[in-house]
């Protein structure tokens, strides 16, 4: 599935006004959304960029191509998304025996609360909207944290919370939200909390309280030009309608990069370092 996206900013003072405007525009009441997002990073370090290019001579040409096909060259951060409600916050300290559970009671009409979310870096195309590939899979059982750590394998990075309101206008999903996090504990955690802390204990990530307005159209048949075109047009139509209220714009592609950056491991001598050393030595010899 692909997402077409536009983003805008709403200052905290204008939030109520914009909320009302959007409610009138979408002809529906805002729907409160609370989410917890947990970020995971792959355990494996990414390969050095350009390492798949042939350097120097090789003697095993045929074997090498086979190896490349199996290992992905890029690694991405992934999310675990948990839908929350107001009651879920501040249920006190969790016991050690408690674990996260994604079990769903389908008989009772429950919807899955946990899902894994993968977001690719946006496309390079220039259509006036940001386009990226995403994959959202609902989890319907088991411990989501364990699932994430073992599939990958992944490492827990951090968790944060999203609060906001959602509107739907045609195929455009409008999400006015801001990001909260629990202050102080970030570096100590090694796994997500079983119970979220009290809502009041959370702090805004952006201290000014500015809201993000995200307008999204989801497209299944990305290859079909007419479908994509209609999606883009609908999103742009929304952008035009909101002109003067909220300026929606195309975010910088690289700010939405979800790839894991390559950092050369310490102690390993790279080719560039070797060359630099050789130069220095050469200069010393010349003297």
């Amino acid at each position, binding site marked *: 599935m692909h997402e077409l996206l536009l983003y805008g900013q709403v200052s905290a003072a204008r939030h109520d006004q914009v909320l009302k405007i959007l409610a009138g525009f979408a002809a529906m009441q805002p*729907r409160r959304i609370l989410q917890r997002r947990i970020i995971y990073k792959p355990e494996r370090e990414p390969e050095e960029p350009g390492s798949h290019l042939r350097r120097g001579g090789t003697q095993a040409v045929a074997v090498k191509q086979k190896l490349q096909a199996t290992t992905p060259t890029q690694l991405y951060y992934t999310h675990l998304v948990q839908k929350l409600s107001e009651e879920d916050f501040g249920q006190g300290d969790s016991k050690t025996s408690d674990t996260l559970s994604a079990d769903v009671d389908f008989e009772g*009409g429950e919807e899955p609360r946990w899902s894994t979310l993968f977001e690719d870096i946006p496309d390079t195309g220039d259509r006036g909207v940001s386009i990226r590939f995403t994959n959202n899979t609902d989890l319907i059982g088991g411990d989501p944290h364990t699932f994430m750590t073992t599939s990958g394998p992944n490492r827990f990075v951090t968790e944060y919370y999203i609060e906001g309101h959602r509107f*739907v206008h045609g*195929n455009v999903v409008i999400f006015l939200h801001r990001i909260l996090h629990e202050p102080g504990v970030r570096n100590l955690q090694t796994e997500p909390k079983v119970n979220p802390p009290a809502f009041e204990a959370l702090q805004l990530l952006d201290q000014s309280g500015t809201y993000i307005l995200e307008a999204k159209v989801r497209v*299944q048949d990305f290859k079909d030009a007419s*479908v994509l075109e209609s999606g883009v047009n609908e999103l742009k139509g929304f952008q035009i309608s909101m002109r003067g209220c909220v300026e929606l714009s195309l975010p910088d592609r690289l700010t939405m990069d979800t790839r894991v950056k390559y950092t050369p491991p310490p102690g390993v001598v790279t080719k560039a370092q070797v060359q630099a050393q050789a130069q220095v030595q050469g200069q010393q010899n010349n003297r």
Partner: protein
Amino acid sequence: MSGLESLKDVALRPWPANKTDELSRDALLQQIEQLTSERGHLRDITEQSLQANIDAGKDVFNDAKEGSEDDDEEKEAPSMKERKDEILKMQREMASHLDWARFAATNALDLISLVLSADPNKRAPTSFSHTFREAGLNQGLPFGSMGVARENHEHHELKSEERQRKEEQQKRRDLVSKAARMEALDTATDEILKAARNLEKEVRRETKYWQEIVSISDKGWPIQRLRQNVRHVPFGVKYGLPEASDHFKARGFAPLRMDRDGSIILDPYLALKPKTLRVKISEGGKIIGSSQLPVESVVEGLAVEKSIRLARDSLLEEELYHEMSLETRQLLPYGVRLRDSVISADVPGTETSVTARQLLIDCIPRDDKIPDGQGHTYDWLAHSIAEALRLLLTHEHSMRLYRRTQLPSPLTARKQEKKSPPLLRTLLAMLHHLQRVDSLFIYLNTVSSTLRSAGFETPLETSREESWTKLRDTLGKSTKKDLSATDQLLDIFTKPFTGKATLTLPSSQGSQIEQLTIAIRTVIGAPTFGTEYKLALPSSLATDLGLSTENKFQSTTDVTSYLDWILSLHVAHRVLKNEYANRAAAKGNEARVTIASKGSKNGVSVKRDISVELRGGLLALHLSQESSQETHSWSGKGEDVSLKEQVKSWVG
């Protein structure tokens, strides 16, 4: 003249020749030039011809000849004084001529300059003559002006009569002006008064309009400013339901026009005749019940409000009718027809009887009177049906909002078709289901009572619709926050109806309780397109009798006959056979047991065939023993002999 006189002494002399006889080249050219200019040509210029010319006096040309004529005048030889006078006179004459010429020339110059100076581009004082500039322009004479006169009236004395006349004139003029002023003031007052009246009217009008607007707004109608700010139509009222289908949504808005006196003019949309849905029940072509909204008689509030309310109601009814008439296209197999804008539907269960019952649904003006000569016995049913249909449409409206606010599915090339709301389908499914369930339950009840009278305990549990029985639980712990309880309740009706009956089978003591379960499921649409009966047999019975545990049936008669057969088989093959364990032998698929008589010592046993028959709630037991036949039957009305006792009495 005087010039000519001075030429008198002049004689032509040859050009001073060069000292040398030889002519230089330049001199020669000069000579030739002179000759050409004197004679015009260079022919015949020889010494002789020139000499001849001189002799003939031709050496001097015309000028010289004139001079020679003047010589005659001078012959008169005037005196000195005379001559001086003459010269003076001539001088004066000449001066006056010159003056006059100068004057005329400057005049002409000034005139032309003045004319030209009318053109703003040519306004240059330099083009005027000096005197004009001094005397005219510098004294303030404007450019381009003609005929300017400056007079001094300071010492203008009027004569007494004239003064009198003038004063009188003045007085009269004053009077006239005073009168005119008074008249003007008068009309001005009139105008102001008129304006004030107009303003007052306008204010009253606006007040009235606003009062009505406020009163409409207070009643809860959303008032909306019109986009094109037309005079007299500043606002409109939105009375249509927000989730109505597109056509009806567009109709749900009417501008509130201002009348001359300020009251609100009814828009054509509002003034349309309100319509209402009418449900009639006919039996054998005779109407035995009809529903209709009462004609609104109580007038409260403004006429506009009333008509807005009526228009809103009418819109709902019309949409309801519209949706249903679209729905009839899919429902032909269920006996639904649309003819003469009347939707007719067969009420199920009465197809066989002579007086077929039909539902007739149409949309009529609300003011129409109910025609006489109709039965009113089934008015309650018609009313309920009409109300149910309305409820279903409002439910559909809130479901539209609900669906709209859910996360939309990702865009695909396939367009999702809009389904028409299930109104008639729900109604039909309901009617079908209730009829089927009831007829089956009646049958089961009679069977149960018959069996009880025959000495078998067969408790029967029935529920017409599963979800109704556990309604409170489902609503209580519902997790759908976006849907109101009413909508969740109504949502049950759009789902398949499922009735359930459980019949406990008669069994011998000590053995497990075995139950027959019949599920009745009604859907108008895929997959069953009607009612389906699912009969689940207990597994022990199924294995004993060699039948499959689950059977599906399409009609009540099928299922009842199958049940008859199963129950009689059960009684014969299991109950009686267990009773007479070794002596009984069951045969095939018939409900017949052969029981050998007890206690025959000589080894010859008398075999008696006992067959059980259950049909139409009547349990019959047939005994055929060689030649004789006996029959005993139970119909569920307080017989005291149980089946087992009866068999025992026969068999011993």
